[in-house]
């Protein structure tokens, strides 16, 4: 029996190769192929500026796929991975989504990192009834019929972070962010939260994306002497910001700073010495002590090398594949509408702990944590929230 199965699988993959090589004969073998494998699209920027943040997500997704395949696949079918490069260019994301849905006929896509790329693919998803799992923390304000959002939206991390910060000593906050939608939304949520807790916002600054000169902002911080800096500076600017803070005598030992965008992966680039002592608020940290997480980290290091670190978005990318698998098995179908309907209320035992897809809004309820950067680039977890319900449309 098993011999027969393996053989027919080999035949099917043989015809799959033939079909992809010669587009003309795609018609007949493809239906034969569909009986044996199911396609999952991975769409991230492997080149261009955003590849810094995005390329590593593919590794986590591939690992999840390999694990699932080794354990027998999804409803008995092996997952066939189709990887596309969005090239940090939003129209390319839309085009590749179209290609994945129309030509490859993938059952679902795990992909996108920036909100801009996600917004670009939404119309394509809606036209072609395609399903997207979006693995990045983001600003909320969205709920698309064809998207599942398994990461934390802004209220989940920002409100918990500010509440925790206010509970420590200090009541004055200085907000610094890159000038685009995520930081501005986060700060819109942060300011009333600070006020509600009896604190004051003593400064709010935005720098253009890619900005590398922070000396003036650092002087403003020195003049305002805040107890806390809340940072949503992203990308290469982050590196410059941390380095210059430290050089100006506001290192992690002298100034309290919390960021909702710095994970272990970012610390790699910032430099461990520059980040030590600063805080981050994330859903996941590599240092979470639980058998599930230790197994996950061990498997990842075995696959990609002992030096590899894993941050929040990578872990969520890994969860995305499992959430899709569970939804398919619950729906007993690969049909997108049925999978979406089955997603509501799904619970996954993820490396970060239990996460649960909301009944209606496609986001997940989960815990967030605050970590303090250690000299080795990992975080000491100093706070863990309760389960937080997602609220993508807060009243601001």
């Amino acid at each position, binding site marked *: 029996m098993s011999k027969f199965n393996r053989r027919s699988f080999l035949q099917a993959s043989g015809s799959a190769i033939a079909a992809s090589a010669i587009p003309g004969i795609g018609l007949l073998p493809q239906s034969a192929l569909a009986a044996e494998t199911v396609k999952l699209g991975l769409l991230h920027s492997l080149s261009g500026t955003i590849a810094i943040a995005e390329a590593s997500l593919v590794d986590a997704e591939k690992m999840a796929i390999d694990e699932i395949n080794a354990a027998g696949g999804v409803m008995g079918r092996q997952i066939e991975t189709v990887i596309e490069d969005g090239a940090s260019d939003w129209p390319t994301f839309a085009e590749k989504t179209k290609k994945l849905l129309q030509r490859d006929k993938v059952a679902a896509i795990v992909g996108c990192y920036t909100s801009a790329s996600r917004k670009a693919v939404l119309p394509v998803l809606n036209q072609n009834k395609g399903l997207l799992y979006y693995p990045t923390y983001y600003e909320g304000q969205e709920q698309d019929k064809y998207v599942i959002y398994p990461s934390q939206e802004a209220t989940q991390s920002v409100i918990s972070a500010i509440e925790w910060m206010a509970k420590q000593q200090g009541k004055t906050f200085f907000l610094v962010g890159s000038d685009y939608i995520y930081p501005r939304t986060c700060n819109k949520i942060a300011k009333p939260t600070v006020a509600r807790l009896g604190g004051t916002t003593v400064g709010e600054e935005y720098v*253009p994306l890619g900005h590398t000169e922070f000396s003036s902002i650092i002087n403003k911080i020195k003049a305002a002497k805040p107890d806390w800096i809340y940072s949503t500076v992203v990308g*290469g600017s982050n590196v410059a910001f941390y380095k210059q803070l430290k050089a100006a005598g506001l290192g992690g030992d002298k100034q309290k700073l919390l960021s909702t965008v710095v994970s272990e992966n970012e610390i790699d680039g910032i430099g461990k010495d520059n980040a030590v002592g600063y805080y981050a608020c994330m859903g996941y940290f590599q240092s979470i002590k639980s058998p599930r997480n230790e197994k996950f980290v061990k498997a990842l290091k075995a696959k990609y090398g002992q030096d590899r670190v894993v941050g929040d978005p990578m872990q969520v990318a890994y969860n995305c594949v499992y959430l899709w698998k569970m939804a398919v098995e619950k729906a007993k179908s690969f049909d997108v509408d049925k999978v979406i309907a089955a997603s509501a209320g799904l619970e996954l035992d993820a490396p970060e702990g239990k996460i649960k897809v909301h009944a209606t809004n496609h986001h997940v309820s989960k815990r967030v944590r605050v970590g303090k950067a250690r000299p080795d680039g990992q975080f000491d977890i100093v706070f863990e929230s309760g389960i937080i319900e997602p609220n993508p449309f807060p009243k601001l």
Partner: protein
Amino acid sequence: MSFEIFVMQVFNGLSLFTILVLMALGLGIVFGLMGVINMAHGELMTLGAYATYLTSQFFAMHLPALMDYYLIVAIVVAFCVTYVFGYALERGFVRWFYKRPLDTLLATWGLSLILQQAYRTIFGAQEVSLPLTSWLTGAWEPVEGIQLPLNRIFIIGLTILVAIGVYLLLYKTRAGLRSRAVTQNRAMSSAVGINTDRVDATTFALGAGLAGIAGAVFTMIGSTNPGTGQLYVIDSFIVVVFGGVASLFGTVASGFLIAQSQTTLEYLMSGSMAKVSILLMVILVLYFRPSGLFSSKVRS
């Protein structure tokens, strides 16, 4: 604004000034003197940054005792690597486009994309982190409340050295004389026996080498990733164009003006608005003085 903050702001202006000059000097030579629009100039800086990274790796592995001084060696290494690369680039690529400025723009832009992707393939898409040098960490505190970051003081000193070096090289040596002669009148220089091909290559390589130094130094204050160069190249072009093409003095002066206005405006308004104001100022000045603040008259 308290006195301490004022002093630190003035210092920031000076620091940004030297950073802009260091960035723009190489471009000032390549674009300003030679007239080559090199869109890949930023990637030459990135090359310098990665050369610095590799040097630090080498020191960490073989000379851990001298780790504190790797940066000094790295600056020299970065200059040499980008100089050689620039030389090869000019001979193998740029020189075929001398009479087609628009094609140069496209070709070097393509080259910059190729280089970025090459860095991504070789070093990975993630940023690389460079070790801190202990004697450049922290700040000098002449008076209580005034902290002047040591790495910025180092950059100021280095830029002064480099600027003097470039001045001496261009205005006090035979090689500099030849390169200025070729810039001013290629046909005549050729007629009096100057090997213009060779002068082109060395001048371009010098510009590239300066970009390498800038790249090496910026690892201290910014990030090192395949796209790093993109962050600096626009500012470099603005400084050079604003100062007046073909005038290195103009480049320095415009660097000073832009740096001081930027730090002042950044303090008074938000970072984004400061940037907008600077660009508006540049546009206004270029509207009334199309060839920049200081334009030297060149016979066409």
